[in-house]
């Protein structure tokens, strides 16, 4: 748990001192890729809470979804249709669902604690 936060902080640190910026043309692809990664992380946390966490699924989802999302955005650019919106809606939707699952389990955990003492 804590190692994840350490990883986050180190990542932010490296990002701040990284001298290069994302080129203008690619910033859209980067945005949807980040969205996919966030969804993966939330999905991973939700799976962990349910005891269904599988590392292979998590890692392949992390990179696979990011690539697919960026690829979809790129295809959309070529076709002239905003296909990146599909990624936005899909991942946004999943993020809310996963967040609901996490919320439910956290609330249940604390409710159980109360049951033991009272």
């Amino acid at each position, binding site marked *: 748990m804590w190692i994840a936060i350490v990883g986050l902080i180190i990542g*932010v640190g490296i*990002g701040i001192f990284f001298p290069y910026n994302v080129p203008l043309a690619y910033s859209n692809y980067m945005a949807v890729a980040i969205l996919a990664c*966030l969804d993966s992380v939330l999905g991973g946390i939700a799976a962990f809470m349910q005891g269904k966490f599988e590392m292979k699924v998590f890692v392949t989802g992390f990179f696979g979804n990011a690539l697919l999302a960026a690829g979809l955005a790129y295809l959309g650019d070529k076709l002239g249709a905003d296909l990146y919106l599909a990624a936005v809606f899909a991942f946004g939707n999943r993020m809310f669902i996963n967040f609901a699952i996490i919320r439910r389990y956290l609330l249940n955990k604390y409710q159980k604690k109360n049951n033991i003492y009272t």
Partner: protein
Amino acid sequence: MKNKGFRIIIALLCLILAFMLTVQIKSIRKISSAGLDKLRAEELQTSLTSVKMLAGLTPVKGQGIIVTLNDSTVQAQVGNTDEESLFGIDNINENQFIIHDSDILLVINELRASGAEAISINDQRVISTSEVRCAGPVLSINNNKTAAPFEIKAIGNARNMENALRMRSGIIYILQQYGIQVDVTKQTNLIVPAMSGEIFFKYASPAEGGGK
């Protein structure tokens, strides 16, 4: 967590995510604050300045050498039929004592071969379409007439350029055989002026393929 490996992977992925987020936010901030058009204009401006420099349209500075050529001061003896003159240089031909366009072109060639990046002759920048041609008693460069002494400035690796010129049986050696005075000085902060005239192509136009 099952084992140490899992924790490392999780940390790594969090690192990647945070890194992507930070770089993306940084880039977007720069884009939205500067405006897309302004960024594109800046990129084009940098490209333009660099291309102008390569074409010789801007003055440049750097280390280099100054080669000064002056006509020979060897006394010519016209119409000398003495035995002694037969063993020396042919004194009757005056032409051999003055600097010709071919001499200057040979010097420029050696300079370029040893990596000269900008060359000027008597403050006339030599660009890709510059001619160096004898025109009567003077030399014509970029349609400007100029006479001896010729001061050739070249920016590049000073040591390499001087050594190339002073090579055994090289251009300076040959010129000095005819008594042409050659002087080479190294400089650490030489300035070569920009091409001062106008250039436009009447016959050439952009073609497809090859290069940027």
